[in-house]
């Protein structure tokens, strides 16, 4: 079971090489195969994440949640997606048509590209880049552009306010997120995802870097625009923020990107802090899914635990607390590593 997917990929690679294709073409086809597998995984998970979120929210509020469509409401989201396919696509006359259209397409790009470096199991990374984490940080930060385009292109006051808030928030919280990952990089001494996984063989980095983990948790919640940091689309004040004018499948793409990002961020948290796909007894890919779902569970739990905070508090909390704290974390990690090295030299 452990090597199930690795074997499938190996067999496919052998098959394509056997057909007499040049190595470059084999690599390209394998990348496509990985991508299709990732897309299938992500789309399936998103459909059931929406269901899970609705059910969890319902139980936390002592309701039943969706329970009409199929057994226990299991087909609810599938049918919702089908319904969205049949919905009219409205582009307001006042909108900047091209920016409006492009935004919905661009929003999925960083979400999908981030999965290139996610290790789904032992030896199951699509592209094991030597700058893995850096790539993830760089790609996921470009999501901001799509939100700004949606907010500006709609030519709608709610959308503009929401778009501006999204940019301010995502740009600000990117700093503590990036700085908190620095501690992990210092401990592992590499940016390659597989090296970082190997460095956590004995101790998970959440034990050595608890502060960094907490900073990452808070900052990534803000990056995902999830409660309690959901000011950009705060329903009670801004209707739906940057998505106010979107309808039908275009709206669905934004929704899809939000949940895809949530899986990606949880996967990176599981990889960098929770040891990645390592664990006893069960196959590594199953461990990975379990860890990702634990992280997603935490994000959903946040939603019904903390009330939404105010815009000025949000930014002040970031700049006056999280950024200095994450810088201090880098400093303390450095001092700790030096002391550790010093102890090792006097022991010998």
């Amino acid at each position, binding site marked *: 079971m452990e090597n199930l997917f690795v074997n499938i990929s190996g067999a496919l690679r052998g098959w394509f090489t056997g057909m007499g294709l040049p190595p470059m073409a084999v690599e390209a086809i394998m990348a496509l195969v990985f991508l299709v597998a990732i897309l299938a995984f992500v789309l399936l998970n998103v459909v059931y994440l929406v269901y899970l979120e609705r059910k969890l929210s319902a139980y936390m509020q002592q309701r039943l949640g969706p329970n009409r469509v199929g057994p226990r409401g299991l087909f609810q989201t599938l049918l919702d997606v089908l319904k969205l396919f049949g919905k009219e696509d409205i582009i307001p006359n006042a909108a900047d048509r091209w920016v409006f259209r492009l935004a919905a397409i661009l929003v999925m790009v960083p979400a999908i590209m981030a999965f290139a470096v996610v290790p789904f199991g032992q030896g199951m990374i699509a*592209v094991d880049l030597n700058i893995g984490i850096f790539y993830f940080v760089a790609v996921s930060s470009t999501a901001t552009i799509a939100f700004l385009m949606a907010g500006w292109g709609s030519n709608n*006051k709610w959308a503009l306010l929401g778009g*501006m808030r999204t940019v301010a928030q995502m740009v600000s919280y990117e700093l503590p997120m990036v700085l908190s990952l620095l501690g992990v990089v210092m401990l592992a001494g590499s940016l390659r995802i597989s090296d970082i996984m190997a460095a956590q063989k004995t101790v998970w980095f959440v034990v050595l870097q608890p502060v960094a983990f907490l900073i990452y948790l808070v900052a990534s919640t803000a990056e995902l625009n999830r409660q309690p940091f959901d000011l950009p689309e705060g329903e009670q004040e801004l209707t739906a923020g940057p998505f106010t004018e979107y309808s039908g499948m275009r709206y669905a793409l934004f929704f899809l990107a939000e949940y895809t990002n949530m899986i990606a961020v949880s996967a990176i948290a599981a990889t960098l802090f929770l040891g990645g796909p390592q664990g006893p007894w069960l196959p590594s890919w199953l461990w990975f899914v379990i860890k990702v779902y634990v992280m997603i569970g935490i994000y959903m739990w946040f939603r019904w635990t903390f009330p939404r905070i105010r815009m000025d508090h949000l930014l002040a909390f970031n700049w006056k607390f999280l*950024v200095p704290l994450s810088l201090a974390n880098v400093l303390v990690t450095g001092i700790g590593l030096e002391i550790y090295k010093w102890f090792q030299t006097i022991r010998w």
Partner: protein
Amino acid sequence: MEQYLALGIFLVVALVFGVVVLVVAGLVRPKKPSPEKLSTYECGLETQGPTWVQFKISYFMYALVFLIFDVETIFLYPWAVQFQKFGIFAFVEMIIFIGILVVGLWYAWKEGALEWL
């Protein structure tokens, strides 16, 4: 190089994904526009004045401070990778580097760039 070819394929397919979804939806969805549907949504009221106006300066200030620190993090990453090999000298050097930026943050703080006015 092959790795970046794979990333290029990821980029292209991610772009195509959105287009395909919208084209497929375009085949099945109805299209019955009316002036009311195409007007700007503002909770049922007529929208007043232009939307594309000069915007609150605070957002710009945060963006500026962000820019400085984002460049800093790019310098910090290679340093963090090599940290365990370089030893105490690189560490002290980086403390000075971060120190200068902390002074910058303190200055922005003092001048009120981080206040929401």
